[in-house]
């Protein structure tokens, strides 16, 4: 009996010591979730965006863009450099398939007129500046459209500001024709602040749409099949 206990104890010790490394994508992409949060739900600091549930084509385009220098963040490039297209596609599909509830929007302190201006730009655009409405491409509910158009809700205001700013300054690129660069360059800085404040204040009503009801108003390289 004593011997049995010792043997059982040895097995228990061995079991405790052996690391549990699953043969799953979740285990493989711990390098991603270290910054993007558990299951890619976003980090609390507002810098690393949520990746869970975004359209797979969009995520794939971003992974390739980091590897090929259209987007710039050295730690991403370092991680993705030795990976090939097929694996980046699989990583993108892994995160796209994760369905998680969204947190309520954080209370903002934007002035009412700014929010109103943001709402108008998002829903109607600004014909004078040749800025199309965000909803024309990103979906009527702004939840994105499969397979390559990202939703604009559920993102921190700072993140949206940073991305539009990066497009405006030429730090972020999409495949040519880079329609978002044209949009961002047509926007005034106060417009960007208005849009990000309004978007960040909206709850997320659901999943990405399956298709756009009408042809997109712009020619975008990133969504070409």
């Amino acid at each position: 009996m004593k011997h049995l206990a010792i043997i059982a104890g040895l097995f228990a010790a061995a079991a405790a010591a052996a690391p549990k490394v699953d043969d799953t994508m979740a285990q493989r992409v711990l390098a991603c979730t270290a910054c993007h949060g558990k299951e890619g739900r976003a980090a609390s600091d507002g810098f690393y965006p949520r990746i869970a549930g975004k359209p797979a084509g969009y995520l794939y385009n971003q992974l390739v863009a980091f590897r090929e220098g259209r987007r710039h963040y050295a730690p991403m490039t370092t991680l993705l450099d030795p990976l090939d297209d097929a694996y980046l596609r699989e990583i993108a599909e892994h995160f796209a398939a994760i369905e998680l509830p969204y947190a309520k929007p954080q209370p903002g302190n934007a002035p009412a007129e700014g929010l109103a201006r943001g709402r108008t730009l998002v829903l109607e655009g600004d014909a004078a500046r040749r800025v199309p409405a965000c909803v024309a491409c990103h979906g009527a509910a702004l939840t994105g459209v499969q397979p390559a158009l990202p939703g604009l809700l559920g993102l921190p205001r700072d993140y949206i500001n940073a991305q539009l700013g990066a497009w405006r300054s030429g730090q972020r690129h999409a495949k040519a024709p880079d329609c978002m660069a044209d949009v961002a360059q047509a926007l005034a800085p106060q417009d960007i602040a208005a849009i990000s404040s309004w978007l960040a204040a909206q709850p997320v009503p659901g999943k990405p749409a399956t298709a756009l009801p009408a042809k997109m108003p712009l020619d975008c390289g990133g969504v070409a099949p």
Partner: protein
Amino acid sequence: MKRRWWLALALPLAVVLAAAGAVVALNHLDEMPLSPDTAGRRAASAEQVAHGAYLARAGHCAGCHSARGGAPFAGGTAIATPFGTVYAPNLTPDPKTGLGSWSEDAFWRALHNGRSADGRLLAPACPYPNFTQVTRDDVRDLFAYLGSLAPVAQPNRPHALRFPYSTQAALAVWRALYFRPTTAARPPGRSALWDRGAYLVGGLGHCSACHGTRNAWGATDGALDLRGGAIPMQGWVAPALNDVDQAGVADWPLEQVVALLKTGRNDRASASGPMAMVVARSTQYLDDPDLLAIATFLKALPQGEVLPPAAEPSAAGARLYERHCVACHGESGEGAPGAVPALAGNRAITLASPDNVINLVLGGGFAPATAGNPRPYGMPPFATVLSDEEIAAVVSYLRGSWGHRAAPVTALDVNRQRGR
């Protein structure tokens, strides 16, 4: 009296002239005049083009000549060196900006003699001290492959080397000291497999460009110098291939060497950092006979001197290891076969320079995705999670645990790597 004055001037002058003459002569060693029909591009067979594509992979030419996100082989990559920045030129067959107007003879002269089509000496950032070994037939096929690419009009960017390294005279002196064109760099009397391995390692593979020991002027001790050293400007160390305490494979089975180069991992190790890129873009595409040849050569390398054991192991960092590392790497640093590298006995951890292991903790990393290991596991980056002091503590713990006896590292060591 008058005569002595004359002699005092003439002697040094003669020495200077003789030295200059020697430099010029050494710079033209084994050089053939370009044939007058330089524009003539010889017709290449499909087999030659395919073989050339294989050789371009073996030489990892795209590693420098394809810019991130740019057209393949169109050049433009900035390569930082201790002497300034060089920019890789366009190798596509564009007549104005690429090799479109080059003859095969000119291409041979560039690889074999390190001289460009226009007669200028090439900066040895392009490892022609290695490529000089490549046979005329292989150079022909490589040229045929490059000639088969779509021409890309992308002007070359001039190098930004500091004076005097920017001058042809300095380059000529460097070459007189450290470069001899040769196709017979390998000792005779070895097996055909060994010879093929030495040819690939020392020639196109240009392994010595990273794994050699560079002197103050950036020169290694020849194409088969694999004594290890810091990779210039990259913050990584290429461990010695002739030392089983570093990256030597003298005590590895041949198939384990082949597996590492083919799939990016084996039972003992996983390629990381710059070597992950070499496997991902180059060695995974080599055929099994060539990989076996490389393994045979590397296994037979004469072993260098063994370094004395370093300082006492450090006990600090155990708590951090328990919190951040143990879930994947295990209590005893045993890792998980096929997924997570073992840390116990891992030579990347116990190298004299801690730079590589610090880089891996800071930036994490995936093993290369290869046909043999298409879905590698990723190590999370800890740059934003742990402070310099904490990383120093955990790396010191790794370097002093499980029988390791490598010197501890300081927060300053970590901070230096973080800044790169």
